[in-house]
C-alpha cells in the first residue's frame, strides 16, 4: 500500500471531519465473487474505486490512472493486469504499473503506480479502508457462525438504497417496525407490542438481546415453532454501519444475517447481506435471495423518504419510545466516535 495523506474527494457529500472518521473504518465495497480480473467499479465515501483481481489477490485502488486521470473502469484487462484505455498503461499486483507502451524500455517510476487501499476478504465480501490509522487500526466487523462447518453461506446481491447508511442500519436494528412493514414477509400485524430489552455496550458498539413471540418463519410457510416459543434475536452492532442479527429458531436452528451498509455517499448506500444458516439447506439459494430482496424492498420506501435524510445525533431532534433503545444506543455510539452533532451534510 502506498502511503498517502487522506483527503476527502472532490464534491464530497460528507462533512470533512466526519469523512475522515469514516475513512478510518473498514467498509465492504463488493462481493468477492463479483471481483475477477476485469476492472470492477465501486464508490465508497464519494471516492470512485476500481477493483480487480490478479493471481487471486483482490486490488482496490482509486479509479484514476495516475498518468492522465482517465478512470480505469473504462479500460480492459489481460493476464498481467488492467489497462488504461487512453495510453495503454497496465497495472498489476498491488496496483503497480508494469507496462508503458509508449516508452517500453524506460524504468517505471513509482509515481505511475495506482493509489491502492488495504484489502480484506471476509464473509464473502471485499472490505477496504480509505485512510487506515496505523497506530490505532479499526477492527473489521465479525459475523457469528460464518466459518462454522455446519452452516451454509449465502451472499445476497448488493441492494442499493437512496438514503444515508446510518438511517438504513438503524432500520435494521429497529424491532418496532416488523408488524407494520414486514407483515407480508414474516411478521405478524396483530403482534406489534415490543417487549422490553436493554442494549449492552461493547468495545465495538453494542449488543441487544430481544426476546419476542414474533415468528421468523416466512408468512404462509408452516409454523414449526412449539406453542409459546419465544424467539431470541441477538443484534450485534459494529459501529458505524455493520450489524449482525442472529435469530434463534427452535432447537439448534440458527439464522445469521449481516447488514453491512456501505456508504457510497451521504445519500446513497449499497447494502451487502451475507447470511449463514444451518437449516432448510435444501431450499435453493435463489429463493433465499428472492425472499430477502422482498424484505429489503419493504424497508426501502421508509428509509428513502425519512426526513431529515441524515441521522440526528442530537437526541432532542426526534422523539423516542422505549422500543427505540437500540436506535438510541446506536446514536450515542456514533456520537462517542466523534461524529458531528447532526450526522452528515
Amino acid at each position, binding site marked *: 500500500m502506498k502511503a498517502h495523506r487522506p483527503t476527502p474527494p472532490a464534491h464530497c457529500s460528507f462533512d470533512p471531519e466526519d469523512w475522515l472518521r469514516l475513512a478510518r473504518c473498514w467498509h465492504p465495497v463488493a462481493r468477492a465473487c463479483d471481483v475477477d480480473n476485469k476492472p470492477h467499479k465501486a464508490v465508497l465515501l464519494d471516492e470512485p474505486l476500481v477493483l480487480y483481481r490478479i493471481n487471486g489477490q483482490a486490488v482496490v485502488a482509486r479509479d484514476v490512472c495516475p498518468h492522465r486521470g482517465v478512470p480505469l473502469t473504462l479500460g480492459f484487462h489481460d493476464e498481467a493486469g488492467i489497462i488504461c484505455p487512453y495510453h495503454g498503461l497496465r497495472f498489476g499486483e498491488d496496483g503497480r504499473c508494469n507496462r508503458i507502451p509508449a516508452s517500453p524500455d524506460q524504468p517505471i517510476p513509482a509515481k505511475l503506480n495506482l493509489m491502492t487501499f488495504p484489502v480484506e476478504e471476509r464473509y464473502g465480501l471485499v472490505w477496504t479502508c480509505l485512510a487506515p490509522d496505523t497506530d490505532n487500526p479499526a477492527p473489521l466487523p465479525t459475523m457469528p457462525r460464518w466459518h462454522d462447518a455446519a452452516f451454509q453461506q449465502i451472499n445476497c446481491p448488493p441492494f442499493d438504497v437512496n438514503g444515508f447508511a446510518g438511517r438504513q442500519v438503524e432500520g435494521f436494528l429497529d424491532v418496532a417496525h416488523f408488524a407494520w412493514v414486514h407483515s407480508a414477509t414474516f411478521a405478524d400485524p396483530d403482534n406489534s407490542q415490543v417487549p422490553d430489552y*436493554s442494549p449492552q455496550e461493547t468495545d465495538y458498539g453494542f449488543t441487544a438481546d430481544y426476546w419476542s413471540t414474533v415468528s421468523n418463519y416466512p408468512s404462509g410457510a408452516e409454523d414449526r415453532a412449539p406453542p409459546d416459543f419465544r424467539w431470541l434475536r441477538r443484534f450485534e452492532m459494529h459501529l458505524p454501519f455493520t450489524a449482525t442479527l442472529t435469530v434463534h429458531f427452535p432447537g439448534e436452528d440458527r439464522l445469521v444475517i449481516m447488514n453491512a451498509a456501505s456508504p457510497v455517499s451521504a445519500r446513497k448506500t449499497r447494502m451487502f447481506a451475507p447470511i449463514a444458516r444451518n437449516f432448510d439447506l435444501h431450499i435453493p439459494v435463489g429463493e433465499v435471495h428472492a425472499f430477502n430482496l422482498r424484505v429489503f424492498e419493504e424497508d426501502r420506501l421508509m428509509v428513502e423518504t425519512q426526513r431529515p435524510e441524515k441521522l440526528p445525533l442530537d437526541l*432532542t431532534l426526534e422523539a423516542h419510545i422505549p422500543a427505540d433503545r437500540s436506535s438510541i444506543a446506536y446514536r450515542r455510539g456514533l456520537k462517542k466516535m466523534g461524529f458531528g452533532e447532526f450526522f452528515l451534510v
Partner: protein
Amino acid sequence: MRNTLEVMVEGIWRQGEGNLAVRLTAPDGAALPGWSPGAHIDVHLPGGLVRQYSLTGNPASRRGYLICVARDPDSRGGSRYIHESLRPGQRLTISTPRNLFPLEKADRVVLMAAGIGITPLYAMARRLEDAGVPFTLHYYVRHPEQAAFRYQLGHPFRFGDCTIYHSSAGESPRHALPEALTRPATGTRLYLCGPDGFMDHVRQSALTRGWSPENIHSEAFQPPAPSAPASSDNAFTVTLASTGQRWPVAADQTIARVLLDNGIDVPLSCEMGICGACLTPVTEGTVDHRDSVQSAAEKSGPRQQVALCCSRSLTENLTISLAP
C-alpha cells in the same frame, strides 16, 4: 432486564485489614454462569440496597463467585451490612455477571490497583497468567496489613510480577510510579482500579508519558449507584453553575419541570429516561440516577451527568452546568 440468581453465602473471611472476602455459591451446588475478569455483579441487600462488586479470584474456577468488600467509613449501608450483618448460610439475590471493564487483546499488560480496587485486577492477573500474557501488577495500600490477597500475590507468577507499595513507607502513587508506566507501546494496555483521585493521577501521568488514551482502561469501583429507594424522593435544590440561580425541587417534581417553570430551556425528548437528550453535566452533588440510558460505567464514572427528566439528587443540592 438483567437476570437475577439466588445464591448462598458459603464463607466469609478476613482478606487483609478492613476487608472481607465473601464466597457465593448456588444453594443446590449447581455451576453459576461463567464470567471474565473485570465483571461485576449487583448484590441485593436487605432494605432495598443494591451494590455492585467486582468478581475476583480465579476466573476459571466454577466453585462460586468471590467478592471482596472493604469497610467504608462513609458507608451508605452496603459495606456496613456486609461487615456487620452478613452471615454464612444466608441467601442473597444477585444479578448475573456483567463486564464493562473487559481485558482486551494485548502483548503486555500493566495493572495498577489502589486499595480494594485490587479485586478486578487480581482476577485479571490470574487470567493473564493462564493465558501466558506478560504483565506487571502494581498494588498501592496504606499499610502492608491492608493488602488483600497478599498470600496469593506473594507467590511467584511465571508471566507476571507483582509489587505492593505502602504509602505509610512513602511509596504513594504520587511518589512511586512504576517504571512500567514510562514505557508506552502500541501493544501494551494499562488497567486502573481504585479511588477516583488515584485513577485520575495515574491516567494523567500515563498520558503525559505518551500513552494513548485507547490503551488506558478503568472502572470506578465505588459506584454511587443507589437503587432509588422511595425514601430518596426528598426535596433538594438544583443550582445552575453558570448563573448561581437556585430552585427547590419538591418530591413530586422533576428537575426538568422546575427548570421549565422558571423559564430555563431544557433539551427534552422521551421524558422517561431512555434517550439521554437531557443529560447534563453535574459539577457538584451526587446524582440519584433514575435513567436507563446511561451504562453502569457512566453512572459510576468520574464525569457525572444527570438525566433531568427523571433523576434526582442524593445530596441537598445538585449543581448542573446547563446553559441558562
